[in-house]
């Protein structure tokens, strides 16, 4: 789960990271009042769950409440990489002496947290890795021991920091690791981390991503989830425990198991079709879940046909068949549905379908045949 800058900063402040004073605003008037409260030069920053807002014109530095109001009016409602800006963060200014980059991520290959520190702050780390790799210091942390004091020194010395800057960055690093660990984060990124002309080390931008699997033990963070920013179908799927990702095509896809569903999408694309979504009903899905899943997939108006690909392991074929029939009955669905059923209790499932098949349900023996059929049906407008 990605957090907005202002949310991430609020969490990081609890761990002793220093930030500039800031106020969230949802309207230009609120932004103007915030600028008045903060006084002096302020930055108006778009709050979106994606990168590249600076380049997109989503950050403006202004010096009066009136200008703040005007800047916010321009930024609010802006589309940044498909994300609509609905809030801005009005933040006080600072005299920047130096800028750094600091992040902690989960390194999947090493199976450990990885700290990246760069003396080239404000730039994308991928860019620095290509143009000036010597500027980057990286260090793996033993998750059983945590960040050790000598490792903090290794980073600050390797980065060539001295005096107050070394101390301030070291303290920030120690605090940030504690936050990363406590918050079950999969990413904490501060870019830039600045040293002000009076020697303060401040978090100027913060990106925090919390591991979805850990949200059960972070009820306070789970509450920060922005329901309005999510796709309504994705939101509903999440609420009922389904894995759903909306795409741009017209063949709706449901299946069990992430790998099989991904593969089904690929096969549909190879057959000349365009998948409308990814929807994994998961292991052990029952009639109720299948029915909800079908409902979510077909509520996307672009969908012209539905491909239902089930290979049963935990999921039982008879449950799937019952779920499908009950969903079609309940929603009065008239779209063509192509079903391919195999694995645990598949015989029973096929039997149930054979005895009760509505006209718009077609069964196919193999995944490839089912994909081709679904693509053809989508071309014919679902009939």
């Amino acid at each position: 789960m990605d957090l907005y800058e202002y949310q991430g900063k609020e969490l990081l402040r609890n761990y002793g990271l220093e930030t500039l004073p800031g106020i969230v605003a949802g309207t230009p008037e609120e932004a103007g009042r915030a600028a008045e409260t903060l006084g002096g030069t302020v930055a108006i920053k778009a709050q979106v769950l994606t990168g590249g807002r600076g380049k997109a014109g989503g950050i403006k530095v202004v010096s009066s409440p009136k200008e703040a109001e005007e800047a916010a009016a321009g930024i609010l409602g802006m589309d940044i990489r498909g994300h609509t800006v609905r809030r801005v963060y009005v933040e006080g200014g600072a005299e920047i002496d130096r800028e750094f980059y600091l992040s902690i991520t989960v390194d999947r290959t090493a199976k450990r947290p990885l700290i990246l520190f760069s003396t080239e702050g404000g730039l994308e780390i991928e860019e620095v890795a290509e143009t000036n790799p010597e500027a980057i210091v990286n260090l793996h942390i033993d998750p059983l021991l945590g960040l050790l004091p000598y490792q903090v020194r290794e980073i600050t010395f390797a980065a060539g920091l001295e005096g107050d800057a070394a101390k301030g960055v070291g303290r920030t690093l120690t605090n940030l690791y504690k936050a990363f660990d406590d918050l079950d984060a999969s990413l904490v990124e501060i870019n830039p981390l600045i040293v002000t002309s009076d020697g303060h080390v401040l978090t100027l931008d913060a990106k925090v991503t919390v591991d979805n699997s850990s949200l059960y033990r972070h009820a306070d963070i789970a509450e920060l989830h922005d329901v309005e920013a999510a796709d309504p179908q994705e939101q509903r799927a999440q609420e009922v425990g389904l894995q759903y990702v909306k795409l741009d095509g017209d063949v709706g896809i449901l299946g069990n198991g992430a790998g099989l569903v991904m593969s089904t999408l690929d096969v549909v694309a190879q057959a000349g079709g365009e998948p409308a979504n990814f929807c994994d009903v998961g292991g052990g899905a029952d009639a109720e879940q299948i029915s909800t899943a079908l409902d979510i997939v077909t509520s996307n108006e672009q969908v012209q046909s539905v491909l239902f690909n089930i290979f049963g392991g935990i999921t039982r074929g008879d449950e799937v068949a019952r779920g499908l029939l009950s969903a079609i009955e309940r929603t009065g669905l008239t779209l063509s549905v192509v079903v391919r059923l195999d694995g645990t209790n598949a015989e029973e499932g096929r039997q149930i379908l054979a005895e009760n098949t509505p006209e718009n349900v077609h069964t196919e023996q193999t995944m490839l045949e089912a994909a081709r059929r679904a693509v053809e049906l989508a071309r014919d407008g679902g009939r």
Partner: protein
Amino acid sequence: MAILVDEGTRLLVQGITGREGAFHTGRMLKSGTSVVAGVTPGKGGQDYESVPIFNTVEEAVEETGANASVIFVPPPFAADAIFESLDSGLSTVCCITEGIPVHDMMRVAGYLGGKDATLIGPNCPGVLSPEKCNVSIMPGDIFMPGNVGVVSRSGTLTYQIVNELTQREIGQSSAVGIGGDPIIGTDFIEILSKFEADEETDCAVMIGEIGGNAEQLAAEYVRSEMSTPVVAYIAGFTAPEGKTMGHAGAIVSGGESTAEAKSEALREAGIRAATNPSEVAELVAEALGLG
């Protein structure tokens, strides 16, 4: 021969009285696996389908001589269950549970490094050696004994491919689901090396997907260390960037994590890469000279 689990496996089920644990214990017993013990804290002294239940893994191992465990414990308690297995001296631990926090798994992986044990999973379908031992949630009846080793990040995609192999009368030595999480106990390379060493395995099938770079590392390993032919398949060509596709670990985050990059690495390493699941069986037949 087979890898990881065989006739000598004495299995313990952690979470045996839960819905999934109970259901799959029944299936594993039916496919002939020696399920010697179950563990559910607080239910020690009872039994399930004649399998004795214990309060702790240590006690179960002492009483029954269990040497492997399979875990069906819910996510908040699953890492603890893995630690308990490792501390009780079990050499093979298979964790089916999906949704374990990544930080828990980093600690597990760190601890595992100092142990002489193999952790399969989490978020995996388990391990099955046809007609020898079933430590999994896989539908046993689609398998047949033979000489093809299967290793995969996905459950149902494994069933799909195994089913197509069996339909062509190409049997399997062992099938291992290594799991779809960002951090898993055992990677492709460790399983491929076991297949390479296994006299009975004449061809290995590797089923990968988007996210991470495990397929690239495996491709390099296959090129430099393996003489057993390998057939691969990657899922997720149509996955958009930045979206988790079901498995917590299946996410395109640029560069190496895409299906294209993985497929290219496989081809560069001279590995036969299929473009759809059905083609896997064809390529395996070709590799085995069954044309």
